[in-house]
């Protein structure tokens, strides 16, 4: 990217991260409203307040890389470049959805982008990403696989198994923990007796803590971690400390959280911080607002297209249980 006159390089790096975060934020704010209005069925888990991790990690990825994510995975897939229209159509249960309306929010996937799915099972994406890392290693793609997981998954056995296996096989696996302090409705302090740093150290795996609300810090950490992975140095853990602003799911009244904590989370908002940093670095306010407006237009168009799209075909759905359509 060309550096503009009088603009420090940091702003040039931050602006695209801001754009990605803005996209994720506005998509999820739109989803929140669509859900409240009854236009999104089922349940959705929003990552509002955690967008810096999605944007920062995605900025370090290359075309051949892959990822598996969680039930709170909208940001990760959008930052990776998932089509916004196909995303909305999926979550609104339409035929043109990326998964033809069969998966919804918890299963958005785009294999052409190496997105091996969000996942409805806590921790389940970790060993799937590990398997993708095996494929990178066997096929010598030069790629890395990213396993996104929340702090709630730290108590899942597959994380411990995966750390062991990734270390044994020196896999190009980046384990990105979004530690937002909450395992569903319980504080992580009541859920997990260890520390992720100590767990990684137990397996001899490199560990980097990072401020998960600072997009540039995440991008730098992810870039350095993925460079090490590509060099064959074995797996790495990136623990991104962040805050979950919304409930576990939309509609969760969060009676278990106190106002002070929610206020503190709001004050650390990664978008507000990025915006302040951009302004401080000399980016014009109207340049930022132009991004916001462009993102809004994109989202409005995607929602309009989703509303206009037809409902999914049941015959096509049942025919896709198997590749060759066999049934019992």
């Amino acid at each position, binding site marked *: 990217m060309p550096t503009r006159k009088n603009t420090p390089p940091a702003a040039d790096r931050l602006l695209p991260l801001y754009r990605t975060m803005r996209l994720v934020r506005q998509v999820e704010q739109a989803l929140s409203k669509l859900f409240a209005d009854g236009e999104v069925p089922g349940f959705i888990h929003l990552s509002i307040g955690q967008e810096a991790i999605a944007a920062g990690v995605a900025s370090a990825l290359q075309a051949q890389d892959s990822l598996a994510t969680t039930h709170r995975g909208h940001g990760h897939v959008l930052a990776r470049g998932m089509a916004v229209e196909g995303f909305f159509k999926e979550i609104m249960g339409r035929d043109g959805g990326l998964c033809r309306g069969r998966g919804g929010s918890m299963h958005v996937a785009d294999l052409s982008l190496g997105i091996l799915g969000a996942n409805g*099972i806590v921790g*389940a994406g970790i060993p799937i990403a590990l398997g993708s*890392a*095996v494929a990178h290693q066997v096929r010598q793609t030069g790629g890395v696989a990213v396993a996104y997981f929340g702090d709630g998954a730290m108590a899942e056995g597959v994380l411990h198994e995966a750390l*062991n296996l990734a270390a044994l096989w020196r896999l190009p696996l980046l384990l990105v923990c979004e530690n937002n302090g909450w395992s569903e409705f319980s504080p992580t302090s009541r859920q997990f007796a260890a520390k992720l740093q100590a767990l990684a150290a137990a397996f001899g795996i490199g560990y980097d803590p990072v401020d998960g609300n600072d997009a540039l810090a995440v991008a730098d950490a992810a870039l350095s971690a993925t460079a090490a992975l590509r060099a064959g140095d074995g797996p790495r853990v990136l623990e991104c400390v962040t805050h979950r602003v919304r409930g576990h799911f939309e509609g969760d009244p969060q009676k278990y959280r106190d106002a002070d904590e929610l206020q503190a989370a709001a004050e650390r908002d990664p978008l507000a911080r990025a915006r302040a940093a951009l302004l401080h670095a000399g980016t014009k306010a109207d340049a930022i607002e132009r991004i916001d407006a462009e993102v809004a237009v994109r989202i409005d168009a995607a929602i309009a297209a989703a509303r206009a799209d037809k409902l999914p075909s049941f015959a096509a759905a049942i025919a896709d249980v*198997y590749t060759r359509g066999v049934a019992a």
Partner: protein
Amino acid sequence: MSATEMRYVQAVAQALHDSLQADDSVVLLGEDIAHAGGSFKATRGLLESFGPQRVRDTPISEATIVSAAVGAALSGLKPVVEIMFMDFVTLAMDALVNQAAKARFMFGGQGSVPLVLRTPHGGGLSAGPQHSQCLEAWLAHVPGLKVVVPSDPQDAYSLLRAAIADPDPVIFVEHKGLYARKGPVDTGIAAAIGQARIVRPGRDLTLVSYGATVATCLQAAQTLAADGVEVEVIDLRSIQPWDRATVLASLARTHRAVVVHEAVQAFGVGAEIVATLADEGFDELDAPLLRVAAPFMPVPFATSLERAYAVDAEAVIAAARKTLS
């Protein structure tokens, strides 16, 4: 191509060898499959032939091994995972049921999960309650999985080649008690998943089975033949999908059927088959449909107890006579 006499376990190893040789994307994962050559020696020599990138010893982490196979399958490989005893699939059920089985469907038909999970089921070795179970009905109940159960060395070879070539997840159920059994194997014979085979034709009664109890049915048929009863024996070979057409056509000839399997009877494969025959073959029936399968209890350890637990030819003959009376 001519047939070679080999043991069932050698046929499995030959199919793995030939698949590894034919397709660079095939990789093997499992506990003690590489250096040790497998607990039952089904992977003997493959590490030496294909190297540690493609033939991998894993730690004892069934959940992660099978989930990793899903991720690898979604990323361009064709993993073949060995789970040492079928009883241990309990530890990998999320990977099979929530991930492998559903990925193609829930991602809207993008790609598929071409993985094979090989695992031996079955008793007869006094291996006890946690090393003897036949759990295939659980997996046959899950949309998206295929379940194949070869009963002889030729099928062990041909169906394993077909399973590895299949674009969808296949559970390939071997039988510990069959591993040493010998038979001719022609590596030029291809098999299609979902096709049953009539292993003995007969006009009086149809016995439907799969896996090790196919031999039990043949033994029963031989005894009944001495009394002038001509029994048709069908080896399903695959229980998901299963070959309704062959079984219904047989029922239309014999008008009597008994389903035989080693697994527990309640809520089992036999229940599904009998229900289908009752639905679709009702007009053909001259006698109640019967099942011969294990009682509703865990597989016991003591040889005497296990013998009493197991389905044998006597039980099949008794059911056949009841059907014919």
